[in-house]
């Protein structure tokens, strides 16, 4: 479905609500199957990863609700000199022991890999995990660092200038792409 946004550029829905739901469910079952019963926790990359991590957590069986932490990577960016227009730093908080644990990093959209690199660095400042896994809802390609997700909801190949937005509003979940 293509619609014109108020800016005049084209907005395309890549995943609708049911597709988002399916992707989340398949991600959570893959995570469970792979990391099994080891001590693990989810760590969301602020801010986009948080809503996805909460969904992943909800879709796990009651007795396997993983603890959920979050990291804000503002302080670990490699492009501090050209950073975001709003550099307000969100809270980082990991409410479980990172030492020796299996940790699943969660982000909504992955592109260059620089955000994930920064998040890994941040997690390592809390301790030495046994292993860090990576789950993303959309892998849109365009890597600039050698980082590969372990769990992927949807794989796309998009021009670098396209914008991908993930909306987790209950009932209106969707992933859209805007060409620029």
């Amino acid at each position, binding site marked *: 479905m293509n619609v014109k946004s108020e800016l005049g550029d084209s907005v395309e829905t890549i995943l609708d609500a049911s597709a988002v739901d399916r992707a989340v469910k398949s991600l959570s079952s893959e995570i469970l199957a792979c990391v099994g019963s080891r001590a693990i926790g989810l760590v969301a990359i602020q801010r986009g990863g948080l809503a996805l991590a909460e969904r992943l957590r909800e879709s796990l069986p009651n007795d396997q609700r993983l603890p959920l932490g979050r990291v*804000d990577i*503002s*302080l*670990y*960016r490699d492009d*501090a*000199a*050209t*950073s975001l*227009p*709003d*550099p*307000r*730093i*969100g*809270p*980082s*908080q990991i409410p479980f022991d990172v030492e020796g644990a299996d940790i699943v990093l969660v982000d909504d959209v992955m592109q260059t890999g620089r955000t994930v690199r920064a998040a890994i*660095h*941040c997690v*390592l*400042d*809390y*301790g030495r995990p046994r292993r860090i896994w990576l789950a993303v809802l959309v892998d849109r390609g365009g890597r600039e660092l050698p980082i590969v997700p372990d769990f992927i909801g949807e794989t796309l190949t998009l021009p670098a200038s396209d914008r991908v937005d993930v909306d987790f509003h209950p009932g209106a979940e969707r992933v859209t792409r805007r060409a620029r």
Partner: protein
Amino acid sequence: MSQLPSRDLLEIDGLEPQHVTAILDSAEAFLEVSRRPVRKVPTLRGKTVINLFYENSTRTRTSFELAAKRLSADAVNMSVATSSIKKGESLYDTAKTLEAMHPDAVVIRHPESGAPHFLARHLRCAVINAGDGMHAHPTQALLDAFTIRKSLGRISGLKVAICGDIAHSRVARSNCALLTRMGNDVHVVGPRTLIPPDFEKAFGVTAHDRLEPALQDADVVMLLRIQRERLGEALLPSLREYARTFGVSRALLDRLAPNAIVLHPGPMNRGVEIEPELADDKRSRVLDQVEAGVAVRMALLYMLIGESQSSRAPT
């Protein structure tokens, strides 16, 4: 888009409430960094911060040094006893010499009011005032505001009593400026000889020469150190007399609002500003202030150095 109005932090004047809030919000994130197993983030890697201290100061200098180091900046301390400042170099020549070393920020403490402003006019890098004469100590006021907000959940609509040698205190001036700006009811109390006549009008505060009315139902009590080195006989006959009239006792603390807190910028004179055992009262937030100091200074370095770069970068 910079969150702060200036590349320097010289005084509270010029900061609007939203700037204060932005600094305190950032400091929350940095407080968490100081509680991690690895208390260091790579944010200001490759940046240099010079601490230029013309007055002795252990805590403020240590706090700034830790703040810079926890952000991975290189911190260099220059103090008066070990430098050419002792050899008669003027502040102008010192500024030019520092400039040639390409620092990203200079933190200055100086016995003369206005010295940081002078430095800021001659340096391209950020200048942070760590206390100048009797004029201003903005990072102390910000860390006090952070401690108050953390303890009481807000930083407006509070009754705050600042007690002691108001006249000689840059801490009092910066706190009055910040707290009135944020919408608090600020009272200053001390011997009449230690409150300048125009102080009430200049800062929009209420002055008292007795503790009782100032402390009645106060949410925050801020005690100032009696600076023995600054007292002449004419202003205050003896510390013992001061302690009797202006030392805070348990009976006085009972007048405070139920969840009130007690602050002190340190170092504390136990038995002078406060009865010795009350210094460890559950209402005391003195150690929280120290922890807040590092977090607030990290936030300022991040916002002044990190962002001065981004605002100049091409988009």
